């Protein structure tokens, strides 16, 4: 399919990249700011900092008191949030179009003057909030630390993706106001950001408003590159077994190091894993969930990363009585068969159709499209890639999918994480 999106892509004199797509269907505008800083840019003894910092961005700036960022935007009927990931941090709001200037003013105020408002009290408070976020999402739920174990295990010490954005409790405790200042000064500047505007706004108005609100913020330049993350497949299989955690079922995660986002290999591996796990007629769901009835579910996919590597993943939880080793053997056999035979045309047709729907879903809201524009501008220096990335994925043929699977989804290139039942319940 071809998707033609009319975009304007401009840079202000201070380096802020402004991308606008007009869509006057609904009286709303999505405002989305991507900063080119994520957990991979963190120092090894300050993990979790990019994310803690994201929280501080909602605690006021020169003209914005306390949590007024939230109350001002919600007071005009806007939705808003921020997220921190491995490669970037983003801040976004969808506002009724009559209030778009307020959103731009707020984003500019914190981009230009956050440090004038940050203080020990707000740092201490948000540190406590983030520690409770960590407890809630990781430490207090079964399998909550699986991803942390995976990233810690699949990458070597010092690798930029070896730790999760949430960071460690010790590092959070150690974060000081000086760290906050240094982090802002290092990364938060118009020339390390992309502003995407999608919705009920013209390109001319969008650009003029961006100039008006962000134009007085100076460029910084000299952004440090993240540590080199280029790394090939795993040399010899790695394995971590978790015993003694109170999990309700056994679980298996098989993780492969695969090429970075934006490569044909990354797309090919994603299609291969979709043939194996996406939907009720996929190979592994059919075999393990429907026929053998040994798995509660099987799922798989690609964690797209930009810095020299990405991850392919297969995961499942067992039904009572099933042996993890048996399931792992079935997966190994299915991977070997796939490497030899590749997908059928029907399977490829199915996963292409699913990818197309998922993509259309992802851009079906102004917020979703603005996010995609910011992503492609920040990580690929090409917001227009939003129109072509799907076509590239859909163009990968059966032999390319097979070949990538044969080369990358191998027994050697595996980090395996297993959760086992506590002894008493086994």
């Amino acid at each position, binding site marked *: 399919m071809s998707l033609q999106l009319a975009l304007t892509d401009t840079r202000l004199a201070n380096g802020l990249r402004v991308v606008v797509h007009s869509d006057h*269907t609904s009286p709303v505008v999505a405002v989305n700011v991507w900063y080119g800083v994520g957990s991979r840019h963190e120092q090894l003894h300050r993990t979790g900092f990019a994310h803690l910092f994201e929280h501080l961005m909602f605690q006021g700036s020169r003209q914005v008191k306390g949590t007024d960022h939230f109350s001002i935007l*919600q007071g005009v*009927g806007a939705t808003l949030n921020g997220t921190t990931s491995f490669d970037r941090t983003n801040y976004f709001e969808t506002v009724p179009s*009559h209030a778009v200037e307020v959103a731009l003013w707020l984003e500019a105020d914190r981009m230009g003057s956050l440090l004038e408002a940050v203080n020990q009290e707000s740092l201490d408070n948000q540190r406590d909030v983030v520690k409770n976020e960590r407890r809630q999402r990781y430490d207090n739920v079964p399998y909550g630390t699986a991803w942390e174990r995976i990233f810690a295990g699949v990458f070597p010490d010092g690798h930029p993706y070896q730790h999760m954005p949430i960071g460690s409790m010790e590092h959070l405790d150690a974060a000081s106001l000086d760290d906050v200042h240094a982090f802002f000064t290092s990364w938060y500047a118009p020339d390390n950001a992309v502003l995407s505007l999608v919705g009920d706004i013209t390109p001319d108005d969008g650009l003029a408003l961006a100039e008006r609100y962000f134009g007085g913020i100076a460029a910084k330049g000299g952004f440090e590159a993240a540590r080199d993350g280029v790394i090939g497949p795993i040399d010899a299989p790695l394995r971590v077994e978790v015993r003694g955690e109170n999990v*309700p079922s056994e679980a298996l995660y098989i993780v492969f190091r695969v090429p970075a986002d934006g490569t044909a290999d990354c797309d090919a591996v994603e299609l291969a894993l979709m043939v194996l796990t996406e939907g009720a007629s996929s190979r592994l769901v059919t075999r393990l969930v429907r026929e053998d009835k040994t798995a509660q579910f099987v799922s798989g996919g690609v964690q797209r990363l930009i810095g020299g590597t990405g991850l392919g993943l297969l995961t499942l939880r067992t039904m009572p009585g099933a042996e993890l080793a048996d399931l792992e053997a079935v997966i190994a056999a299915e991977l070997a068969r796939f490497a030899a035979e590749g997908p059928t045309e*029907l399977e490829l047709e199915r996963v292409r159709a*699913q990818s197309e729907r998922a993509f259309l879903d992802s851009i079906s809201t102004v917020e979703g499209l603005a996010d995609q524009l910011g992503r492609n501008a920040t990580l690929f220096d090409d917001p227009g890639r939003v129109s072509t990335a799907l076509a590239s994925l859909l163009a990968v043929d059966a032999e390319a999918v097979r070949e990538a699977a044969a080369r990358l989804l191998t027994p050697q290139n595996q980090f395996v994480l297993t959760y086992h039942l506590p002894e008493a319940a086994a």
Partner: protein
Amino acid sequence: MSAILQPRPTVGAPVLWRFPHVDESRLDNGLRLLAVHLPGKHVATAAVLLDVPVDADPAGQEGLAVIAARCLDEGTTSLTATEFADALERQGASFHASAGYDGITATLDVPVSRLGTALPLLADAVLNPVFPQEEVDRVIAQRLVEIVQEQSNPPSRAGVELPRLLHVAGTRHTIHAAGTPESLAALTSVSAAYLARIAPSTTTVIVTGDLSGVDVPGLVHQSFGDWQGTADPWVPTSPQYDTRRRALVVDRPGSAQTQLVLGHSAPDRSAPDWSAMGLAAYALGGTLTSRIDAVLREEKGYTYGMRGSFAPQRRGGAFTIHGSVDTDSTAPALQDLMTVLTTASTEGLREDEHVAAREYLVGVSPMRWETPGAVASQLGAVVGNDLPLTWIDGYLEGLRTATLDEVNAAMRTHVRPADLLVVAVGEAAAITSALHDQGWADLDVIPA
């Protein structure tokens, strides 16, 4: 090097937004059709609402409707489960079915260009399911594992336990909608029970998306027009509340946090002051600047976030507050929470809080109902809960026009701190006394 920043801009007047127009019609067999054209939305949602609510499950066989919903795509009279999945997925469609007190909803998401091919598959699933025993047994086995997962996950566990506290023992509302190991073991003839309940006259089909050039009534007629049969509309069960002020601690030694859910009875969406109730709930617990999080999160850092809201059912419902706090902060967090609630009740909300709630809930409407899925889901909530289509406009009008006095009256009537029951999932030894200290003397502790 100080940035030159602009002063805060003034904001113009908002555009009055209306819920999209709903085209309502009926097929000759009585089936109701609601179609909503949403320009530019190229993935359509088609939903079938069937009058198979969970409270129609035979006594002792609770979970039947949920299992039936989960088995709709497990094979039809003409397609095996795998053939069905393959046919659907090749259209880029996804299928999902669930059941609640508002009946079974079977939903299809599919690119509009493929609606004509996918809609017959949706019809096949809901009209001609065969419920093969082997697949039913497998889906039940998966539900039994799901129960174990629910027990071990603190938010799920608290959500399962609260209805057992809220309602009179033995009544349907104390039993999980998706059943218990005992009731699922007793399930017989899912097929007969399902087929006896469905009929065109009690069914609604909802289609939303960019429908320009699509003959929706024609497509729906092709797929559902030949369906005949009758069934009596279900008479919904009203919940019976147990109003004793009780607490339940689910002991989970070593917990990093205490998962809290507090609740008491509340009306459903048909309440005349429903909009005022929504405004009050937002001011108390809708966001991180609301009264609860302003203290518990932004001042004290006890939690990542605690929310309060009304949770309506088809009949009746609850006001609930939920969130998790680190174990050591459980006692002060509960104390602060109760102080926030009683202060609000005593002093009332301020006009600025009322305005903030109104401007948010009214202004967010175009975002809230931006997607075909969200519009279909809202219409499903209206139909499934026996409300007229005019309810949505009335709700929005109520949000715009409720006065501060009306909002405070709704809050004092429907948020009653002294009536709150509480479920706490966490380390019992560390938190039980905190519940006693806040007045929950009638307190049970059970193992996780």
